[in-house]
């Protein structure tokens, strides 16, 4: 065993001098044949071992690290610890396994300075969110580039005392100083903590996702947009969107924005929403002609008042609840940049004219999904014909296609397939 260990060490030493990979392979083969038996795995050079380790799941790597000191050294190679995902689940609230506490301890003591891309996946329990914050507040030696706090079930960060969450998060903001991506949807992040983020990471921040962060105000996000000129991707709820924010994002010093995602969620029925000036959107499009505007609507039908009155540069549009024919009619008139449209439900009258208008006016539309939206078969065929092959995604529930005197349900997949130039079927749910 000792001899073996020595040989591994020698092999490692030789590797350090850096022969090419084929050379290394030859050597291993030779070493194997000398003994007349199969390859001695302990002789594997470090660079190959490292590659193998990179392909192994963490648990297997941990097992392998117990083989010998050499493998154990590889296990602790900084390269293998740049990226880590903490999975924090409680048996009472999740079916998934959690990252072992000992491993967490080891990472904090031995590898926190190697961590660069970190995410936390927490289940719906407060304990898990708590545990994530505990880890965060110990990450004082690291310089993170990306950080993601991801709730896999009900958002549990929201249940933490705000101050506790904020102090943990600001540890990372203050110490990292080079954060480029930050995903903190559904958390109690607030304006002062965003200020800390900006003060320390304004030069590097490129992505910020903070949908449903109720403690942030429009002024808070405006401060981020004003200072972080490299910001390319932003996700937030509609109540944070303002004309000032759009103007700040389209200032000369600001890089082109790539994605802007807006979630429009109704908290109380009959809620009224502010509107955004057409001139602000125009400024945004002038500044970043290629930018994608993704909008998700979760509103009651009567809350759409301020939307789709003027032209809006939306590219991806999702209606998560029932939306009226009238609003969909306005979509056809006001969304010339539309690429994808998804409508979960609509009233009982067929959507025919609205779809035709959308086909006519939205020249870039390439994906459409219709749930509970009745459409007559002939209008649907006409729509597909107008859009033609650019429709790369076309999804509709079979049960909402209404046969008429032109086409029955059995003909429609032929007609549509013909215009799309590929085999197409409507979606089906079990009728059982």
């Amino acid at each position, binding site marked *: 065993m000792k001899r073996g260990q020595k040989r591994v060490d020698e092999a490692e030493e030789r590797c350090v001098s850096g022969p090419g990979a084929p050379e290394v392979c030859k050597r291993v083969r030779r070493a194997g044949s000398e003994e007349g038996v199969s390859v001695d795995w302990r002789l594997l050079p470090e660079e190959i071992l490292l590659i193998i380790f990179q392909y192994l799941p963490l648990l297997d790597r941990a097992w392998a690290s117990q083989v010998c000191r050499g493998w154990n050294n590889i296990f602790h190679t900084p390269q*293998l610890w*740049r990226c880590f995902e903490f999975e924090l689940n409680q048996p009472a609230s999740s079916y998934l396994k959690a990252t072992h506490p000992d491993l967490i301890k080891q990472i904090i003591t031995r590898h926190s300075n190697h961590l660069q891309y970190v995410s936390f996946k927490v289940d719906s329990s407060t304990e898990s969110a708590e545990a994530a914050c505990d880890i965060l507040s110990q990450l004082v030696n690291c310089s993170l580039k990306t950080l993601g706090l991801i709730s896999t079930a009900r958002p549990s960060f929201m249940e933490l005392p705000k101050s506790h969450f904020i102090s943990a998060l600001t540890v990372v903001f203050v110490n990292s100083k080079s954060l480029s991506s930050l*995903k903190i949807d559904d958390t109690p992040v607030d304006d002062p903590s965003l200020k800390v983020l900006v003060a320390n990471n304004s030069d590097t921040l490129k992505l910020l996702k903070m949908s*449903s962060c109720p403690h942030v105000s429009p002024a808070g996000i405006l401060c981020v947009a004003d200072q972080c000129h490299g910001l390319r991707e932003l996700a937030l709820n509609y109540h944070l969107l303002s004309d000032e924010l759009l103007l700040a994002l389209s200032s000369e010093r600001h890089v082109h924005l790539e994605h802007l995602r807006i979630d429009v969620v109704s908290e109380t029925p009959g809620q009224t929403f502010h509107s955004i000036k057409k001139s602000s959107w125009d400024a945004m499009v002038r500044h970043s002609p290629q930018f994608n505007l993704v909008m998700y609507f979760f509103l009651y039908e009567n809350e759409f008042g301020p939307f789709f009155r003027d032209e809006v540069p939306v590219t991806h549009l999702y209606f998560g609840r029932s939306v009226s024919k009238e609003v969909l009619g306005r979509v056809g008139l006001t969304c010339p940049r539309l690429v994808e449209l998804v409508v979960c439900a609509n009233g009982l009258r067929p959507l025919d004219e609205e779809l035709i208008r959308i086909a006519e006016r939205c020249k870039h539309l390439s994906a459409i999904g219709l749930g509970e939206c009745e459409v007559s078969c002939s209008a649907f065929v006409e729509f597909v014909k107008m859009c033609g092959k650019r429709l790369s995604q076309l999804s509709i529930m079979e049960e909402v296609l209404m046969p008429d005197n032109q086409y029955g349900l059995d*003909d429609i997949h032929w007609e549509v397939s013909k215009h799309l130039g590929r*085999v197409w079927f409507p979606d089906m*749910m*079990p009728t059982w």
Partner: protein
Amino acid sequence: MSSINSVHWFRKGLRLHDNPALLEALRGAQSLRCVYFLDPWFAGASNLGVNRWRFLLQCLEDLDASLRKLNSRLFVIRGQPANIFPRLFKEWKVSRLTFECDSEPFGKERDAAIKKLASEAGVEVIVKISHTLYDLDRIIELNGGQPPLTFKRFQTLASSMEPPEPPLDPPTLELMGNCVTPVSDNHTEKYGVPLLEELGFDTEGLAPAVWPGGESEALRRMDRHLGPDSTAAWQENFERPKQNSSPLLASPLGLSPYLRFGCLSCRLFHCKLTQLYKKVKKNANPSISLYDKLLWREFFYTAATNNPRFDRAEGNPICIRIPWDRNAEALAKWAEARTGFPWIDAIMTQLRQEGWIHHLARHAVACFLTRGDLWISWEEGMKVFEELLLDADWSVNAGSWLCHSCSSFFQQFFHCYCPVGFGRRIDPNGDFIRRYLPVLRDFPAKFIYDPWNAPEDVQLAAKCVIGVDYPKPMVNHAEASRLNIERMRQIYQQLSRYRGLSLLAAVPSNHTEDVGVNDARGATAPPERRRMPCSAPPQLGVRREQPGPKHRGSRYRHSLGHHTSPYTNHGHEFAVPQQPGRLSWPVGGGTGKKEREVEHNGCHGDSGPSSSAQLKDYEKRREDAGGVAFSS
């Protein structure tokens, strides 16, 4: 010549009509005994609801009554078949055992054991397929050894097969001939159908069955289908409920529980449907979609027949792992009709009271429990249905839940049923809710689907204060759908390795499945041809050509090369999670699979590095485009 003493073993297939195995038992036999095994211990300890037990016992009563007309009886035997058969074989000098083929994995296992016991005892075993329209193994064979993964594919395969065999007539006294059933004086005592009470159920206050069990009832319903008013049956079977609550209610024409217990032969139903179609549509040839209801059932049987873990998330190769919440309290609210959403609660009440709900109602409550609102595992919902739903077959139940929760079968997931709007669209007046939730009876239609939005005076006038007399909604649907659609999107993006912004494109494509019939059966015309209207205008020639083998594009050829399921080909890596949670949420430290690395190379923040060369590239890209690191 030794005499033939037959035993026919009833399990499902609780009927005399179209029962090929039973006819086999009669062929040349001197004696016939029809047995059914009932495990009294299982009854008490099982989770089957009282409605299902009552239905079963009524089926057995009816069977016994029909057998009496043939001078025979049903032998209900208390105990386990494997323990009791060897004794019966000896005692009754059995030489032939017949039963209907059971395609489900546990049934197959049980039957294999009994076949072994029978052969040890020198008993001939005859098994016949009659619970399904088709021989499922043939379908799997046609599909290259794997069950089809999409319903469309299944339809295509099914329509390329010979039509199902016509149903057989029930045995008659003439057919019985000299064959007798030895019945002892104490038969009822020893082998009679037990009462619910004897099985330990509390029947006090039990409402009369909305769905009476038994073959006779099934056939009566079948006949009514073909009665003078066939348009009613037409609407029943083929149209979407519109604008009133009646389709949501248990119908005297409904057949699904009877198909589940085999009181009605699916081949008889198939045959009658064809007749009905020809009658209504004036002899036009029906398209395959006419049989959708029956085919969905076959589809799930086929998908499950070789997969003993079909009803699980873990270790089930066709199930996507989704990090469902574990929440017993929320689950109980759903199961016990306390969600605070009248539409959901009314459906769950109907299910518990009557044992059946409309398929759209199933979609609604299944979506609500899983991907729509509560984010609770489909397995939990499936268990509740198993207890309460009369027509919940193991395969069909699990398959439907896999489908509704978007855990399998490549569903589009964007469409979540709204627990307020969906019901309102079907039944704007809310009569369905009033019927099952009398507490809300006096609410005006305007608020009956969302009573918490009603002003206080309206609530008081309705004598029902929300939060006091009826619960407040347990979730904010808008917020829950926002969260859940986002999670589904992330999960599906990881499956499809799609990185763009499109929601629709995140669903893994499944081209292999969409293609027409198997090349091996090249001579078979694509089913769609049969649907061609005779008067197709000439310019529509394209569509005639399109599916023909001659015109298959290279994409077709490519796809046809994959006779096996995508799961065993390119899809294998993603479809078979080796460790819980690995599939949908790969661990950052590197999860090993090459594809996964490739997938993460682009721009995903939740991921692991790959080989050092790739790693450098990866990190460089991260630095370049750090901004898109989370752009999933």
